[in-house]
């Protein structure tokens, strides 16, 4: 099931009613698990079975880690869990990539390999739930979290449908305790949840899908598109991926609140960042913090000599790039971001926390702040070219054409033609986000009387429907 369907809008109230009409906490968890598996099996029932098996292995591994005392035995259990989780992820996501590269490498030294080809479809959300189960096992191994012996609450943690397919990637330490305590319905939380969802739907249906159509047209003909078309396409893609992915997170966070569950914040106005390092504290926060806690810090983090710190940063960003997809483009994208983060890290500059007001407290930012924000945004846009294209050569072609032009007035007019209604809407969206950047989302109008608020919400709902495309696009991060 996907959020942007009528099916989901019927599914949600049914689950909501079943959930809150059940008083017993364990039964509520069971309702969530059954609903989540139904939600996931809507794509393919076989992948639901795969998720169940993968989850169960880590459930047993965590119990084993608690019972076994010897370090060697514990390590054996940990590595077995890694082998299962990462093995499945590797098989479904990276097998083709590594096989193809092995073939190319062998061909370069004169050896002909015919690798075994697999035509398997990547199970939706496998990267997300694998990282959740991994973090659970690692936390239990480190002694930071007791293993749960209740398979229902554990399954609810792994498969909780609002965030199952595209995050936020929750940590067991944050989400699991919520399934272990009795949840009480909170009017304000539920109302806030609906606001999140409404804003998420607007971003996805009204903005992301329309921007995506322009980006697709530009990147569908990289070799022939002129510079203004590619520039507009890149800009559209930058906002498409932001609106698309943050929309999913917003809907997930909002949906979870309807069930009395708090999910972590995944986006904190990343395009108002003043440096690439800050961008990564505001973009896909759940993934960035995952890599920080389970890769960067164990590697040594900011400790040690310069070379060691550079290695730690680059390994983290390269793996983060590879997590997004089995392609060299993602590796290069990760590497570029890693290189951009390095100077601030090596200089030992203290990072601004994501909870800070992005772009500063002032309503009208100063020229230095504006320059920093624009510079960061420009860099991020250029790296998105690697993210959007399929091969390094294609990315390089697009970047070369962007730089070398030609930049003509006629070309620019033609490139802006398809976005003449989108860019004003986008400008309003950016303004709304700027004004609301102290809060998690812009739909906060507590001072307005109810008739006005409801009118505004109704306008948003109908504007979202009116601006949506006939064929709603899948969320971009489903492919990861």
């Amino acid at each position: 099931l996907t959020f942007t369907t009528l099916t989901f809008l019927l599914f949600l109230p049914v689950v909501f009613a079943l959930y809150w009409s059940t008083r017993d906490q364990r039964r509520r968890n069971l309702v969530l698990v059954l609903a989540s598996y139904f939600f996931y099996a809507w794509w393919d029932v076989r992948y639901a079975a795969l998720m169940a098996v993968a989850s169960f292995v880590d459930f047993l591994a965590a119990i084993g880690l608690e019972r076994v005392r010897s370090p060697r035995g514990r390590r054996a259990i940990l590595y077995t869990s890694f082998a299962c989780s990462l093995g499945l992820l590797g098989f479904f996501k990276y097998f083709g990539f590594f096989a193809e590269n092995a073939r190319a490498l062998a061909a370069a030294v004169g050896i002909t390999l015919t690798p075994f080809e697999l035509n398997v479809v990547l199970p939706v959300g496998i990267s997300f739930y694998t990282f959740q189960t991994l973090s659970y096992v690692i936390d239990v191994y480190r002694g930071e979290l007791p293993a749960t012996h209740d398979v229902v609450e554990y399954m609810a943690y792994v498969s909780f449908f609002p965030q199952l397919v595209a995050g936020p990637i929750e940590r067991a330490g944050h989400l699991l305790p919520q399934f272990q305590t009795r949840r009480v319905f909170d009017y304000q939380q539920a109302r806030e949840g609906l606001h999140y969802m409404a804003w998420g739907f607007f971003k996805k249906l009204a903005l992301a899908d329309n921007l995506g159509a322009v980006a697709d047209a530009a990147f569908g003909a990289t070799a022939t598109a002129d510079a203004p078309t590619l520039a507009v396409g890149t800009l559209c893609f930058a906002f498409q991926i932001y609106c698309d992915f943050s929309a999913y997170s917003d809907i997930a966070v909002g949906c979870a609140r309807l069930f009395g569950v708090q999910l972590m914040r995944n986006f904190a106005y990343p395009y108002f960042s003043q440096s690439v390092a800050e961008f990564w504290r505001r973009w896909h926060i759940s993934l960035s913090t995952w890599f920080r806690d389970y890769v960067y810090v164990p590697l040594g983090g900011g400790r040690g000599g310069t070379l060691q710190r550079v290695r730690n940063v680059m390994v983290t960003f390269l793996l983060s790039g590879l997590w997004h997809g089995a392609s060299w483009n993602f590796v290069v994208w990760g590497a570029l971001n890693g290189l951009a983060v390095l100077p601030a890290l090596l200089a030992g500059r203290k990072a601004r926390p994501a909870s800070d007001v992005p772009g500063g407290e002032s309503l009208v930012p100063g020229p230095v702040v504006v320059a920093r924000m624009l510079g960061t945004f420009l860099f991020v846009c250029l790296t998105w070219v690697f993210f959007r294209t399929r091969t390094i050569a294609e990315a390089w072609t697009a970047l070369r054409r962007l730089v070398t032009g030609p930049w003509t007035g006629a070309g620019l007019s033609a490139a802006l033609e398809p976005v003449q209604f989108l860019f004003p809407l986008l400008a309003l969206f950016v303004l709304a986000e700027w004004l609301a950047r102290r809060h998690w989302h812009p739909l906060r109008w507590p001072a307005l009387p109810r008739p006005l608020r409801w009118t505004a919400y109704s306008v948003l709902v109908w504007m979202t429907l009116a601006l949506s495309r006939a064929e709603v696009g899948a969320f971009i991060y489903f492919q990861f």
Partner: protein
Amino acid sequence: MKRFLRDVGAFLALQVVVAVAVETAYHRALGAHNYMAAFEDKAKLLETTPPPRILLVGGSSLAFGVNSAAIERALGRPVVNLGLHAGLGLDLALRQAERSLAQGDLVVLSPEYGPLGPGLPFHTVTLLHQLAIVPSAARDLHVSSVPRLLDGGLGLPRQRLTALWDYVRVGRPVSVYWREGFNRRGDFLGHLDSGSLGGGSEHVWVPTAELATDACARLGRFARRARERGAEVLIAPPPIPADDRERQSETIARFWQAVTQRTGLRVLEDVVLPRSRFFDSGYHLTRQGRRQHTGSILRGVRAAGVVTRDAPAAPVASPRTAQPGR
């Protein structure tokens, strides 16, 4: 919780009121005259035409491409042209026909290639649009269509709102696609004076025989049920532009061969025409193309020997939008 449910209920009720207002405004301005509203007229025609009849079942290639009066005159049986839109899918067309099949009926199936392939049993927004305009069409809907319809359900409000917005800005769109373009036998005549637009820019895609397994099963099931009720079924492949036919001649030959083998149905010869005989798509024929296509169907039916000239033509009841004399 009560407060939350009350608030959400009230807000949803408000949205339902808006939705009903939008749909009513759309229906009054455009929907009642929409091309797809002819579904209702065709359903009435099917109910009121006594058997034995010739039922033409398929999509818009039948609506645009057949002169039912000529067939009626030649074969001496009333003709009901049920062809409307390929996007409604094969299931809806077959179920609509199946519901009223009677002893002695002849069904000429002429499904477009798209719905015969895998994965695209119908076009979601088109079918939703049909159901919103003529809700009684839901009785011919297969339950398996519902999940897919719900998955794409958000497309309908957008279609309504954009159509209304355009109507407010520029009035009724200039188009031939109106309900009034159909005659009393269900043939579409609204385009006949417009000449050829070269068959549009899109090419007809034909699925391979291997991809048609599911469609064959459905066609075969329909044929069995038709025979049980004493009706005959023939397949008349839709007309195809010569360039598309040439490009896919082997695929097409194998495709219809597979249909014959798997369903046991007789498949008439397909009608290949130059693009100048097509109107705005590779399925919609011009006046001349229509004449040739009709002639081809007539020859095929006669050759099949399923209808003799002896049967007298039954009087045809006129539905609301009938245009006499065309």
